């Protein structure tokens, strides 16, 4: 009846507790404040004319009839905006030899993908702006279109950028020089070529921006649906030559982001320029069709990989070639190379082996840009590695669990450096494997599978181990010259009534950043959570920071909040000690009351300290420093990344007559270090898994031979809906990082990282009796039937 007391039984112990998100009530009442909801006085609306060609020279543009429409305030071309905006180039210094053409808000002489915005109209309503678009005439001269990856790589073939020598954006190789030897002496070699389709984020709220340039104040305010307001403050300031202090970016409620909303988009840059030209607020919200042809896409890899094993099934080596097609430009400011770079560096990450070689080639083509989307590179590296491991297991007659148990880096063998150069502090593959085996009732599932096969029902069981990159240090973008912060900042104030206001640079897109920050502050200060107010997403009031991406909200933002809170608590207790004639070390705070640390007897409420400090400082001893606002910044040190790990399992059924796949259940064991709010972590995992499952079975941006996106709507591009998704069972192993006091790592990519790998393995497991294999994602019914030679 009475469970033993845990650390959660202390008053105000919020770290580790599943508490609901305070801000979610607003969203549930329809009181969200999304950028797409915003209307400002004198606001105008922008719409864009888009290129119908994937590659063409712009010969002439006639905007006169459009300008004549009543209610149209401005029609602007690339040339107009190029006069006030400097171009940008999506390269990073540490990717040696990387190239990409300069980009302007709108193209000045050439379009490079179908759907690229060409002309902007600003009018009194979106409808009027769209009417005007219909009257704009653009004369194009078609240029050769580069769509296919192999065509793009052909010497002497058509070029995406006619001025360049080839279509290569970047080439890289990792090689420790011993791979050929390892393969020559291997007992077993497995080899496969994989393809991964393009897919895209499909956030439910499309991209939205309201730019408001006030010429009288020389001030630009941008309400921007983004996860990285500080990055955009910097970019708008530099490219439009406005002092940084006069650029304010506000990111209020964001209707989904997943990495997609942290890149520079041509239309967004244009809208800022349009507002500057007009001196009025200008709003642009992409509609769904526009989202499909202008949001970044992701993945699009072809990977050839082989793995060498010894006679007993020990992994000896991997040899990998990743070709990735990124569209016409590399995105800015993070570049489109990061995904491929992470693919080749995350290969084989869970396993102990020494010999590794990888070649990465990043290639331009006439499609929209690809770039960072949830779990950058992870699903590719995981699917390739885990499929090869399963193929090896089949070849050696080993069970998928057994071969992994034999090869994962043992939990007590850390720290470790991977053959790809990553340094792992502490991971828990063995514990996770064990837990998954038990949680799935693996032996029971295998028995059931065998039984059902006799009745013509083909179930597949797939597992996939993963390593996730979180909490990136300056080694990620900073070293490449990108002005993307790896540090975060917090400003914490005790208010006159004894509450706490926390301004923090990590942002909220629904994952619960504000909730966990308030949990950490309340926990560390000794206050009820409802007395902590967290404010995010406004460069004018919150301190500069990297904000929320690459799973840095809890690990870096949380640690920033923790350290800031401890500083504020020290200050409060110093003043309390003066008032109470006590040593600060003899005092503590519980439930908003200063207490004797030893006896927990209440001495005075912190609201009384605030009252005295703010209103009766005359009663404090001369020279008292009543610093009830503290500001604190934290940047990760120690390991360059806080890697996390886990393993997923999938049970599905393949209908061998129709090729349809039914997901029955999904399992995940995950280790994200210290868990701050288990409910939010679980929901992050579930959401991530479902994004991976969508990629595995449904999602693909399909292009025609002429470079037209042929399924660019929500009726044609399939996304996971409730009926197709399984229940997802979750368990945790906790290995806190020793690099921070908090010990938290990230969890946002984990679900997506391995879900498609799991499905790939499970489908191949189901098809094993037919001798059929699948090596391509998404796994459509047609691919299944083709593999079964029934199509």
């Amino acid at each position, binding site marked *: 009846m009475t469970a033993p007391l845990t650390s959660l039984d202390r008053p105000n112990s919020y770290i580790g507790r599943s508490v609901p998100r305070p801000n979610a009530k607003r969203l549930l009442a329809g009181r969200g404040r999304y950028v797409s909801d915003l209307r400002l006085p004198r606001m105008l609306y922008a719409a864009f004319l888009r290129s119908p060609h994937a590659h063409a020279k712009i010969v002439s543009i006639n905007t006169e009839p459009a300008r004549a429409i009543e209610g149209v305030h401005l029609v602007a071309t690339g040339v107009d905006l190029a006069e006030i905006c400097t171009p940008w180039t999506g390269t990073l210094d540490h990717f040696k030899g990387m190239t990409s053409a300069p980009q302007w808000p709108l193209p000045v002489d050439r379009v490079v993908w179908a759907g690229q915005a060409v002309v902007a109209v600003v009018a009194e309503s979106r409808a009027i702006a769209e009417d005007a678009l219909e009257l704009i005439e653009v004369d194009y001269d078609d240029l050769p279109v580069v769509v296919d990856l192999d065509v793009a790589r052909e010497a002497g073939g058509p070029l995406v950028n006619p001025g360049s020598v080839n279509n290569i954006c970047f080439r890289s190789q990792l090689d420790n020089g011993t791979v050929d030897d390892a393969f020559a002496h291997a007992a077993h070699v497995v080899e496969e070529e994989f393809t991964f389709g393009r897919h895209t984020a499909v956030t439910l709220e499309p991209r939205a921006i309201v730019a408001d340039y006030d010429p009288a104040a020389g001030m630009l305010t941008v309400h921007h649906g983004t996860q990285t307001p500080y990055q955009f403050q910097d970019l708008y300031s530099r490219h439009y030559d406005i002092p940084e202090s006069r650029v304010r970016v506000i990111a209020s409620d964001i209707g989904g982001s997943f990495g997609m909303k942290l890149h520079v988009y041509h239309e967004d840059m244009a809208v800022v320029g349009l507002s500057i030209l007009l001196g009025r607020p200008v709003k642009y919200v992409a509609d769904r069709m526009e989202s499909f042809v202008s949001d970044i896409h992701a993945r699009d890899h072809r990977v050839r990989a082989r793995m060498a094993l010894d006679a007993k099934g020990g992994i000896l080596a991997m040899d990998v070639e990743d070709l990735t097609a990124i569209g016409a430009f590399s995105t800015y400011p993070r570049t489109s190379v990061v995904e491929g770079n992470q693919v080749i560096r995350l290969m084989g990450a869970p396993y102990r082996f020494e010999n590794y070689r990888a070649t990465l080639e990043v290639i331009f083509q006439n499609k929209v840009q690809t770039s960072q989307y949830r779990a950058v590179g992870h699903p590719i590296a995981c699917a390739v590695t885990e499929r090869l491991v399963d193929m090896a297991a089949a070849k050696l007659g080993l069970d998928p669990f057994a071969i992994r148990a034999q090869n994962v880096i043992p939990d007590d063998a850390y720290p470790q450096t991977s053959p790809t150069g990553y340094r792992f502090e502490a991971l828990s593959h063995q514990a996770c494997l064990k837990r998954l085996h038990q949680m799935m009732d693996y032996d029971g599932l295998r028995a059931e599978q065998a039984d059902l096969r006799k009745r013509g029902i083909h179930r597949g069981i797939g597992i996939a181990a993963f390593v996730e990159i979180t909490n990136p240090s300056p080694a990620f973008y900073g070293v490449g010259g990108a002005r993307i912060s790896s540090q975060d900042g917090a400003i914490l104030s005790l208010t006159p009534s004894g509450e706490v206001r926390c301004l923090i640079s990590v942002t909220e897109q*629904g994952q619960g950043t504000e909730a966990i920050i308030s949990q950490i502050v309340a926990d560390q200060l000794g206050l009820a959570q409802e007395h902590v107010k967290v404010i995010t997403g406004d460069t004018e009031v919150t301190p500069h920071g990297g904000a929320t991406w690459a799973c840095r909200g809890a690990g870096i933002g949380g640690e920033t909040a923790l350290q800031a809170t401890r500083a504020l608590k020290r200050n409060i207790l110093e003043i309390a000690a003066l008032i109470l004639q006590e040593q600060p070390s003899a005092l503590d705070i519980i439930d908003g009351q200063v207490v004797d640390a030893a006896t927990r007897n209440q001495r005075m409420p912190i609201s009384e300290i605030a009252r005295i400090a703010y209103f009766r400082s005359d009663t404090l001893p001369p020279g008292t420093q009543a610093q009830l606002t503290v500001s604190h910044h934290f940047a990760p040190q120690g390991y360059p990344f806080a890697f996390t790990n886990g393993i997923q399992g999938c049970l599905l059924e393949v209908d061998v007559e129709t090729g349809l796949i039914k997901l029955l259940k999904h399992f995940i064991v995950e280790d994200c270090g210290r868990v701050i709010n288990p409910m939010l972590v679980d*929901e992050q995992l579930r959401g991530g898994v479902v*994004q991976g499952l969508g990629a595995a079975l449904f999602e693909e941006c399909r292009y025609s031979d002429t470079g037209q996106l042929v399924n660019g709507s929500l*009726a044609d591009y399939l996304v996971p809906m409730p009926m197709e998704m399984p229940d997802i069972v979750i368990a945790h192993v906790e290995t806190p990082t020793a690099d921070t006091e908090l010990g938290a790592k990230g969890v946002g990519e984990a679900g997506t990282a391995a879900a498609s790998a799991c499905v790939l393995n499970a489908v191949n497991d189901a098809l094993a009796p037919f001798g059929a294999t699948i090596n391509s994602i998404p796994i459509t019914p047609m691919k299944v039937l083709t593999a079964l030679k029934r199509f």
Partner: protein
Amino acid sequence: MSGFDDSLLNEADETVRIRMVVNGRKVAWEVAPRETLVDCLRDRLELTGTHAGCEMGACGACLVQLDGRAVHSCLIFAVQADGATIDTIEGLSERGAIADLQAEFHRRNALQCGFCTPGMLVNAHELLSQVAQPSREEIRDALSGNYCRCTGYEAIVDAIDAVAKARGTSGGVT
């Protein structure tokens, strides 16, 4: 005004007077025939709780109640709603019609970015008014037209399931 396309502008300029009851209040508008109900609700009444996600009836973010039934406000022209009673997420919230659903969604964190949430709630409200005790399968089926990119749907299914059970034990509130 050379090159001015008269026919286009005239067509867009035409308006029709319509009346409806939105969240219990009578409203009268002059609307262009091409205006959708979702745009009217959001732009004219500033009822921004109803969201436009796909504008083709595939995502469910724009669901509102029209004469008591859930409909896609992006697929209805405002003129088609002349004479109708409309309830949006704001109205349903204010009169407490979905308070138990909202509380359960909150308790279980059955939302993340919240953009799909009003549509989810309208659909859940509709489902429970039609089927008092739906199975989990029936809940998933009913939500098949509601896209959520953030959650894995499971918490949403759990929340609706829990409310159905609670309503069942408390005497079948609908």
